[in-house]
Structures are given as C-alpha cells and as structure tokens.
C-alpha cells in the first residue's frame, strides 16, 4: 500500500475502534436528519485552532464538532451533556464498562 514504507511521513491504515465508528455514524445520521451541515462541522473543527490538530485525534475532533453543532441545534443542552458524562464516568474505568448496553 502506498505511503507506508516511506519515512513514516504518511501514517498507516488501521481499523477504526468502535467508538470512532459510532462518532462517524452519529455525524452521518444527524446531518442526514438536518441538524447541521458538513460546513457546520468544518467550522467547528477549524475554530478549534491549530493546537487541536497536534493534541486531538481525528475522531476526537469530530466528536467535539458534532457535539457543538448538536448543542447549537438545541438537540440537548450543555448541562445535560455534562451531567451524563459524569454518570458515565462513574460506571467503570473502560469504554466497554462505561457503555450501557
């Protein structure tokens, strides 16, 4: 495959983790349902600034951008999100344990 043998300039392909696939699915489904446009996602990602590209992975930027757009679309509130994230953290230390069903 292209690019992989050369100076590590271009990263390798890898399978996506389940949480990453879910982020992708949330992005496609919510935009299909009209909650935001791809331009809205891009705007959110570009607003994160250069540092986000150094410190966050691809789907980390996407989940943040989808979340911001959904809050702007009044799908849920920031308070609801924060409260739920606290509950989830209390369920267990790993993604598998914290995912409720």
């Amino acid at each position: 495959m292209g690019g992989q043998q050369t100076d590590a300039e271009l990263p390798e392909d890898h399978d996506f983790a389940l949480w990453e696939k879910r982020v992708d699915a949330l992005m496609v489904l919510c935009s299909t349902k009209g909650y935001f446009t791809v331009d809205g996602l891009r705007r959110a990602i570009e607003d994160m600034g250069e540092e986000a590209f150094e410190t966050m992975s691809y789907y980390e930027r996407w989940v943040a951008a989808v979340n911001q757009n959904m809050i702007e679309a009044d799908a849920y509130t920031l308070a609801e999100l924060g409260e739920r994230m606290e509950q989830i953290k209390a369920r267990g230390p790993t993604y598998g344990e914290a995912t409720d069903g």
Partner: protein
Amino acid sequence: MPHDHHDDDFHHHGMSPSGHPYRADDDHPLTYWQTMEIAMRELLTEKAILTPAEIAAQIDAMDSREPANGAAVVARAWMDPEFKSRLLANASDASREMGFDIGPMHLIALENTADTHNVIVCTLCSCYPRNLLGLPPDWYKSRSYRSRVVKEPRKVLAEFGLSLPKGTTLRIHDSTADMRYIVLPARPKGTDGWSAEDLATLVTRDSMIGVGVPKSPS
C-alpha cells in the same frame, strides 16, 4: 527496530516499542472524548432523535462499503463507452444506475488519459468518495498528504511508488464538502476481451485516488 529508546519517545510518535501504532480498544482507560460519544449517543436516543438500530445499521452500511464498489464502476466504464460518457457527465447518477447509494453529494469522475493524470485530495479535512470507496485511509486524512500533494505532487506520488513520465500533465483536485471526486484510471493494456469482473480485480483503491495505477494483467 533498535530497542534503546525511551518509552516517552515512542509515545510521542504514537508507536509501540515493537514499532506498531497504539490501538485504542474497549479495555483501555475511558477517555474524555469517548465519554462524550457515549453521552451524546444516549441523549440522542432518549430524545428519540436516533435509535440504536439506526446507529447499528449506519455502522454496518459503512463497514460494507469498500473500494470494490468503485472498482465495479471503473470496470463498467472501461467495458461500456455509453456508460463511461454518462459517468463523466454525472458520476452520481451513473453510480446510482449501478445500485450504489451516493446520497446527496455531487460526484465527479476524472478520466486519466495518455497525457493527463488526476489525483484527489481534501486539503481542508477528509472529504472522500466514501460511498464508492469506503472510509478514507489514514494517510489521506494526514496533514502530510493534504499539505504536500498540492505543493510537491510528484514527490508524494513517488513515495507511493508512482513515477509519471516527465511530459504528463498532473492535476490535483481539491474536494469540498458537497463535491467529491473519483479518478477513472486508464484501462491497462493487454486486457482486451476481459469480463467486467476480471477487470475490476485490477482496479485498486489507490488508483481511484490517483496515487497509484491499476494492476497489470497476469
């Protein structure tokens, strides 16, 4: 690999001591962003904006898309001149004709000829003809590819093992959110009389991005 590195050094490069990229899995400590994903999914489900079945079906659909879909389109264009005309006129409609779900996006097919070679990129993010090729490879999303392929395309193509003759015109096409490109590579010589199925086996993902060419027969 030498084995005298510091762990931090590996970590900085995202590589394990055996030289493999770290992979996130369900049994690693929960991250802030994973927590956000779970919270979003639960809230959207509770508010009846999404159902778990919709999310599962979307992941299934995404997993089932693969470059073979694009290869089938390319092979048909090689076999059928009328289909090729329709593909070059409107790649979305021509792909739908073959039963592929293209969604609302505008797809444009770029024909490689004896003197012109096309390459696709999304310099802003990662727009990609995912309905025909599946999810983009990591390198397509990398800043390295996105920044360099428009600046030093021949050098980037050489890294993929593709050296074009000096006189070849190279066109780099920058995708947008609503407009995606797919490269229609040139049909390899020595494939006269081949079936569409056999032709499709020569069409690689990279040849439809433009960083490669189809496999040679034999």
